[in-house]
């Protein structure tokens, strides 16, 4: 039996939709088979929560009196991009205060940055705004220092160019004789620990590996509120080699996401400080997958044992963009707390949170079951395998006339 979006939405409106999470569906499909499960279940909810560096907030402050065209701006001393219209601002989550000591005393703490500003805004805290401008005839004001609060802003939009990576690397320190401090956390020498960052079987794009239902316009749970997929994310790379189940063997698809920050909550939007590396934002995302047919539920039944992640050395190979994965390990092994690598037992640590991913999938399930969240059909798909869209490294050409 196949179902349409309209039929599923009709059931949701009538409070009759059967919704399960991407973890719950695994056992159901195992017990009943894909055919029966597809008849019974209407929606599968996914979830993920972890640092997502390609995120930021698009803020509009409203016009000042007299008017001003911001040219340099700060929120809680963190620099904000104002190369757009007069009172629009974009704050990236990895931005740091100009006077942050960074790694001058190694490893730096990176206590506060763009991600923390966004968390403060979402929490409803006051934030100090400072801006300067050269002044023009239409926008004469040259300076402002003021307290702002999200509730006073005409709009505050989370606008994330690349989130929800479909699978990701496992990071180890194979060669350095000392701990290394990376965006994947602290890696102790001699394969001291292996860090990973994916919700595995709960992760949105791993449950819809060929982007059949997740596309442009898909309505999602974003940071505790609602948001949408607005495009494929930057570095979207559907052509990464896949296993026999069609699951990419490394980071592949990505999503660009947008949503109203005023609907979000601090529980799912958290500033992150990676010691020795920098700041970021942990974002909570949940994507509903409509069970259109048997094939769709079969892909939602993917389990951690079927998803393989590449283990990369972050002491030499990753930074120099060389070499190849040391091995591939499954998320089932990673989740057990230990992996076996070349005969050694290595302790694993996750950077993303499985309990939070689970909570998000459960929350979205409740929203849908209660009839408060309808599904949207994508207005266009994001590119899949064979589309010709492919990520490639920087093509570095010398500047003419420069030696």
């Amino acid at each position, binding site marked *: 039996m196949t179902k349409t979006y309209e039929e599923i939405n009709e059931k949701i409106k009538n409070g009759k939709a059967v919704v399960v999470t991407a973890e719950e569906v695994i056992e159901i499909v195992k017990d009943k088979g894909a055919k029966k499960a597809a008849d019974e279940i209407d929606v599968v909810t996914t979830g993920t*929560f*972890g*640092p997502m560096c390609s995120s930021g907030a698009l803020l509009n402050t409203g016009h000042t009196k007299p008017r001003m065209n911001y040219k340099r701006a700060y929120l809680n001393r963190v620099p904000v991009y104002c190369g757009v219209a007069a009172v629009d601002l974009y704050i990236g989550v990895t931005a740091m205060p100009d006077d942050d000591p960074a790694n001058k005393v190694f*490893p730096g*703490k990176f*206590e506060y940055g763009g991600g923390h500003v966004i968390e403060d805004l979402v929490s409803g805290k006051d934030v100090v705004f400072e801006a300067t401008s050269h002044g023009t005839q239409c926008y004469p004001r040259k300076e402002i220092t003021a307290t702002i609060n999200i509730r006073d802003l005409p709009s505050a939009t989370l606008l994330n160019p690349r989130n929800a990576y479909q699978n990701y690397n496992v990071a180890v320190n194979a060669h350095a004789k000392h701990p290394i401090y990376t965006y994947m*956390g*602290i890696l*102790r020498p001699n394969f*001291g*620990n292996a*860090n990973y960052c994916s919700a595995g079987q709960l992760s949105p794009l791993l449950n819809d590996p060929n982007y059949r239902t997740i596309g442009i316009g898909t309505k999602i749970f974003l940071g505790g509120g609602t948001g949408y997929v607005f495009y494929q994310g930057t570095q979207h790379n559907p052509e990464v080699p896949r296993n026999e189940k069609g699951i990419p063997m490394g980071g592949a698809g990505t999503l660009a996401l947008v949503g109203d920050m005023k609907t979000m909550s601090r529980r799912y939007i*958290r500033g*992150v*400080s*990676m*010691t*020795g590396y920098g700041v*970021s934002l*942990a974002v909570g995302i949940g994507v509903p997958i409509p069970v259109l047919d048997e094939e769709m539920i079969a892909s939602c039944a993917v389990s951690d044992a079927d998803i393989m992640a590449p283990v990369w050395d972050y002491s030499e190979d990753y930074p120099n963009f060389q070499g190849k994965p040391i091995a591939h390990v499954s998320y089932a092994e990673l989740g057990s*707390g230990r992996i076996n690598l070349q005969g050694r037992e290595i*302790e*694993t*640590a*996750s*950077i*993303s*949170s*499985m*309990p*939070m991913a*689970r909570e998000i999938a459960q929350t979205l399930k409740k929203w849908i079951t209660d009839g408060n969240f309808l599904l949207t059909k994508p207005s266009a798909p994001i590119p899949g395998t064979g589309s010709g869209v492919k990520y490639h490294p920087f093509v570095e050409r010398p500047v003419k006339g420069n030696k």
Partner: protein
Amino acid sequence: MTKKSAILHFGSDLVDKPIISGLIRNYDVSVNILQASITPEEDGTMFVQIEGEHAIVQKAFDYLRDHRVDMIFPAKNLIWDDKKCVDCGACVAHCLPRALTVDGSGKLQFNSERCIACELCIPACPYHALGSVSEHLS
């Protein structure tokens, strides 16, 4: 009964001496070795918990001191803020005494009994959920 944690450091000249077995033989204490390692320079480090009658535990530490074992007695100094914790588990691999663990559902558990306040976990937490009391007070 007293339980006292310590980080013991054995110089390379001590590593191959039966100091811990001597301790167990001569004193009525139980010695719980939480973590032990030997560096390439052949120095040895051990996190131990020694438990027994108060006076005897004192004597056991005197014995170690007499054998030129360096000791650090960490204060119970760690704050785990469960309101900030997101249960990611990034700290777990850095906690050698296994005071930080994840339970079956992936939730972080902090067992302050096992914590020796080495503070190795603090920089590993991206969410500012772990901190020392002294940092907190300053």
